[in-house]
């Protein structure tokens, strides 16, 4: 776990400094379920800084229309995002970005990341290479 903290800091700094492209896409041919792609897309936008704390999200109906998917699929993605502490949903005002860094959420993230890093070590990848990947540089 010696480079867990630098990993997080670098990740956040990379995404915050990336310019433009405040958009994401879903791919209907992908094996990943659509709701999961929407969830990942919004998390990526939050990480990039395209969506900031307090920014309102489109309604499930509007996002469904713009992506060409059923509003129920968007609703499921929003439910997961709410559960994970990335957004809050107000029945009257709709959904907005509200990243809740509660200890449990951070602990879950740490466990997931730990698994990835263990796999990286098991494959014999050097910390330098992983850092390069994190910076978005070519191998």
């Amino acid at each position, binding site marked *: 776990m010696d480079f867990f903290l630098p990993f997080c800091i670098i990740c956040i700094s990379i995404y915050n400094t990336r310019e433009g492209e405040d*958009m*994401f896409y879903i791919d209907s041919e992908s094996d990943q379920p659509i709701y999961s792609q929407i969830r990942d897309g919004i998390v990526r936008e939050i990480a990039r800084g395209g*969506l900031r704390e307090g920014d309102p999200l489109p309604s499930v109906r*509007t996002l469904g229309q713009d992506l060409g*998917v059923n509003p129920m699929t968007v609703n499921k993605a929003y439910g997961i995002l709410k559960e994970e502490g990335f957004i809050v949903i107000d029945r009257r005002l709709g959904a907005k970005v509200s990243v809740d860094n509660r200890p449990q959420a951070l602990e879950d993230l740490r466990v997931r990341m730990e698994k990835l890093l263990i796999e990286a070590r098991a494959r014999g990848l050097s910390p330098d290479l992983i850092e390069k990947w994190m910076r978005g540089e070519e191998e």
Partner: protein
Amino acid sequence: MIDIILGGTGLFVLGIMYSQMRRLFDYNMGQVLYTHIPIEDRDRPSLVDFLKGSKRTYQVLNLILGALILMTGLVFPEKYKALSYIIILYLGIFGLMAYLQVCILAFRRRKEREGIHVGTKAYVDPKASRVLEQAKLPAGLWALPLLIFFLGYLVLELVWPGQDRIFFFVNLSLMLSIYAMAFGLSKVPVKPVSKDTERNIFLNKKRSLALKEACFGMAGAYSILLLLSAYLVHSDPYKVVPILGLQILPILAFTLYILKKNKEVDREISREMDQEGIYLDEGDYFDILGYKNPKDQRIMVADPLMVSNLTINRGNKKGKAIFYTGSILLALTLTLSLFAIIPIDYSFSLGEDYLDLRAHLYRDRVYYKDIEAIYYRDSFPEGHVVKTNGVADDYQANGDFSIQGKGPVRFYLYQNQEEMIEIQRKGQKPIYLNLEDSKDLKDLYHDLDQKIKK
């Protein structure tokens, strides 16, 4: 006159269709012939050659159809003119649509052969989507023009009772057509056309929101214009200015305005996407019949090129059911409209107690005991005539009409015959009928006269 009306309408429909469909052959918002092509591939010689050739053929087909429409007036006899115009226009439009569909499918096959990636992605700019969602007019405000329209009609009915019901329903359907246009625009998805969210908001606003607001303005203005036309028609039903000037011309001008604006904005968006190198590879699900994507659960989908146009997703079960039911209904309507103008001579039979008259959908049984008077006229009564629920061309006029100074009447008339019989009935509309031959008409008049006198 029929040549000007039908020929002009045919050429107008053809012109509008041509100007809209021609755009399918131009690279627009990452698409050509409803097929996504990456910017770097759009200048491939094989694709360019295909597009050039098919566009030229499409232009030639349009020219041929235009010439056929113009020639119809010269070639066909008076009796079959209306029918010929309509059949040529129907066949021409269906033929052009079939040709475009063939082009789309052939182009997609070519794209596949060339190894150009077929996309399955859908893009969104969540921030732009939200901003535009919030900028929409409140739903309650949309009720205002309809409220003005209904309240206005209520006042008209209270002050001048006996407003024409058919005219009311025509006005209502015109009002609702503006709402349908706005509804179509509200379904246009917000698409990221730039890497900059502000530009996305600006351009998408121009593409759908601004046009939707124009629809709202038009609905407001139209509610007043239509009320004014109702008042003018009530004061003098034989005036054409209220119908032409206040009903037809405004909606025609507005439709052309929307099409022109849509074209301008699409060009601007295309330029922006070209400059920024944005390419939305969202899959090729659209064609000339609409949209077909089994993975999309939506039933109505906004057309990416024809703004305010909603198409049915015939890829899922519900959409398929609606599409095929709608197609059958359309075919029935077209067949019925053709049936209504087939030049079948009206028939009559003189019975012991009554005279039966029959022309297409119009039927009358005139009992001799109900006839108050019968006249043989050498010419048509003076005064303007308006069609209320009738069919008329240069050959025949059948059904309900209204003559200035006489009121509602029923016609069974050949247009090339000046002479006619006028039958006045107790508490019912007078009937005007004639035959192509004067001698036959005079014989009929004498027979009728004898029967009545019995």
